[in-house]
C-alpha cells in the first residue's frame, strides 16, 4: 500500500467527478425522482395509493439511487478502460500493488454513492410533499448502513465492470441490474412477498434487498422490515463476496 499514490488517485477521480458533476447527478437521479413523483405524489394524491406509501417508498428510493450511482461510477469506467481507452494503465504502473488501484475505484465509487444518497433525501422530501413520516432517531445506524450500502454498490460495480464488455452493457441492465432493482424490495417491503414463499426465499440472494430493508428499518421502522442483524449480516457478507470477486476479475483483466 502506498498512501500517497492512493490519495493522488482519489484526487484525480475527484477532479474528474467535479468536472462532470451535473451530468453525473442527472444520470443518477432523474429516474429515481420520476419514480418518486409518479408513485409517491401522483398515485397517492389521486387516492390510488394510501398516503403512507410515501414513507414506505422513500427508503427504497434512497437505496436504489445509492446503488445505481455507486455501481455505475465503477463499472462504466472499468469497462471503457479495459476495452478501449486504457486510461487505467497509467495507474497500474504507479508504484503500488495493482489491487489498490481497484480498491481506490471502489472507495471513489462509494463516495459518489454517499453523495447521491445525501442529495436524494432532501430532493425526494420536497417532491413527496407533506405526509411523510420518516424518523432520524438512529443517526449512527443510518450512517453505518449508508457506508456499507455505498461500498457494496461500488464492489458490485467492480465485479460487473471487470466481467463484462462494452457490448454487454445493455444486457447488464436488462438481465442483471433490472431484476436486482425490482426484486430488491425497493417499492415494497420484503414481508409483502409472503404470498410468494419461494420468491421470498430466492430474493434473499439479491444484495439490493438488504439495502432497501436496511434503510426501511432505520427511517421507517413502523413498517415491517428485516431485523437489523439480518440486514447488517447480509451487507457484510455481500460486501466481502463482491470485493473478493471484483478483485479477482480485476487481476485477470489487468495482468496478461
Amino acid at each position, binding site marked *: 500500500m502506498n498512501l500517497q499514490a492512493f490519495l493522488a488517485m482519489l484526487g484525480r477521480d475527484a477532479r474528474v467527478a467535479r468536472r462532470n458533476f451535473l451530468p453525473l447527478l442527472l444520470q443518477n437521479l432523474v429516474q429515481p425522482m420520476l419514480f418518486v413523483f409518479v408513485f409517491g405524489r401522483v398515485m397517492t394524491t389521486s387516492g390510488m395509493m394510501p398516503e403512507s406509501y410515501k414513507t414506505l417508498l422513500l427508503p427504497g428510493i434512497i437505496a436504489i439511487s445509492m446503488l445505481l450511482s455507486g455501481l455505475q461510477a465503477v463499472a462504466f469506467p472499468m469497462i471503457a478502460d479495459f476495452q478501449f481507452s486504457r486510461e487505467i494503465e497509467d495507474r497500474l504502473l*504507479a508504484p503500488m500493488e495493482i489491487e489498490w488501484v481497484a480498491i481506490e475505484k471502489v472507495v471513489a465509487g462509494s463516495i459518489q454513492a454517499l453523495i447521491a444518497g445525501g442529495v436524494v433525501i432532501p430532493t425526494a422530501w420536497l417532491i413527496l410533499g407533506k405526509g411523510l413520516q420518516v424518523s432520524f432517531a438512529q443517526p449512527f445506524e443510518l450512517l453505518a448502513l449508508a457506508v456499507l450500502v455505498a461500498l457494496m454498490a461500488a464492489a458490485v460495480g467492480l465485479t460487473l465492470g471487470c466481467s463484462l464488455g462494452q457490448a454487454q452493457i445493455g444486457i447488464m441492465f436488462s438481465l442483471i441490474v433490472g431484476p436486482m432493482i425490482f426484486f430488491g424490495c425497493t417499492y415494497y417491503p420484503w414481508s409483502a412477498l409472503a404470498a410468494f414463499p419461494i420468491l421470498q426465499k430466492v430474493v434473499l440472494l439479491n444484495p439490493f434487498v438488504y439495502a432497501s430493508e436496511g434503510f426501511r428499518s432505520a427511517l421507517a421502522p413502523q413498517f415491517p422490515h428485516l431485523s437489523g442483524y439480518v440486514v447488517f449480516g447480509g451487507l457484510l457478507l455481500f460486501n466481502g463476496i463482491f470485493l473478493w470477486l471484483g478483485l479477482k476479475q480485476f487481476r485477470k483483466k489487468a495482468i496478461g
Partner: protein
Amino acid sequence: MDVGIRISRLRKVYTSPPPAGALVRGGPMTGVKFFKRPEKKKYAVVALDDVSLEIMPGEIFGLLGPNGAGKSTTVGVLTTRVRPTAGEAWIGGFEVWRERVKVKRLIGVVPQKPNLDFALTAREMLTYHAAYFGMPAAERQRRSTDLLERFQLTDRADSLVTGFSGGMMQRLSIARALMHDPQVLFLDEPSTGLDPQTRLLLWELIRDFNRHGATVLLTTHNMDEADALCHRLAIVDHGRVIATGTPEALKRSVPGGFVVRLKFDTVSETLAARLAQIPGVTEVQRTPEGGVDLYADRGGTLIPHVVNAAAAAGATISDVHISEPSLENLFLHHTGRSLRQ
C-alpha cells in the same frame, strides 16, 4: 544510477486470449504457434520461447521483429504487466515479477497505442502521474511546465487531450513517462503512425534522454529506426531471439551482404549448382515459393551470370530483386521471410 536489464530463459504462454488492457499493446498474434490441447478445447499461444538477453546500463537497445514476434510481450513482462510462465527478468537489482512495486519506480513506459487520460488536461496528466510517484507539488508544477515546453506542447497545456493529433499524443505519452525521472525507458513501437518530421523529433528526444545515462529499450519493425537509433539490437521472431549485436555487426554477419532474390519458372538442381558457382555468390537458398535467394558480395553485376546460368539450365527468369546490405537482409537470412511479410 546504472540500471541495466537482464532476461533469463523467459517463456510466456497465453492460455486464453490476452486481456484487452493487459499488454502494453501487442500487435495481433500472428506468426506464433497455435495448438489445441487434446483434453480441453483451449488453445495455447507461445509468445516467448526461452528468451535470454542482457541490456547494458545506458544503452539504447532495440527489439526488431515482425508483428507477433513477442516484442510487446517482452516489454509487457519487463513492465510488470504480463506474468511470465517461466524464467526471470531483472531490472537493476530487482526481479521484475517478485518486486513489481520497486521495479515500477525505476521504469517509464510509452505504450504502442496512446492510453492517455481523456478526462484530464495535458498538464494535469503530467502532475497526477508525478503525484502517484510521490513528487512534491511544487516540483510537479515545475517539471510539468518544463517537459511541456521541451515537447512543444505549451500552447495546449491546459486543454483536454481530446482533439490532440497523433503526434501530440505520442509526445505527451513520452513526457508522462519521463515525468518521474525513470532510469529505464520502454517505448513500444514509438514511431508507428508518425510523420517523418515528428519521427525525427522523437528520435532526438530519445537520444537526449539517453545522453544522461538512462537505459532505453524500444521495439520496432522499422529497420531504419533500429539502425539509426539503437546501440545494439536483438532480432526476434516466433518468440525467439535470432541474433544480437550492433546494427553494423549484424549487417556484416549476412554472408556477402547483398541479396539477389530470383524467381524462375522451374528450379532444378543443375540451376542451383550453376548459380552457386557464379563468382561472388557465397550462399544459395531455395525459397518455399519456388524462387532462389543468392547471398553475394555484389549486386547488379551478377545479373549477366544469372541469365547465362538460367539459359544453360533451361529455366526462364520471371523476377529479379536486388537488395543492398541491410537488417532486412539479415532477417531474411535467418528466417527465410521478409520483415514486411
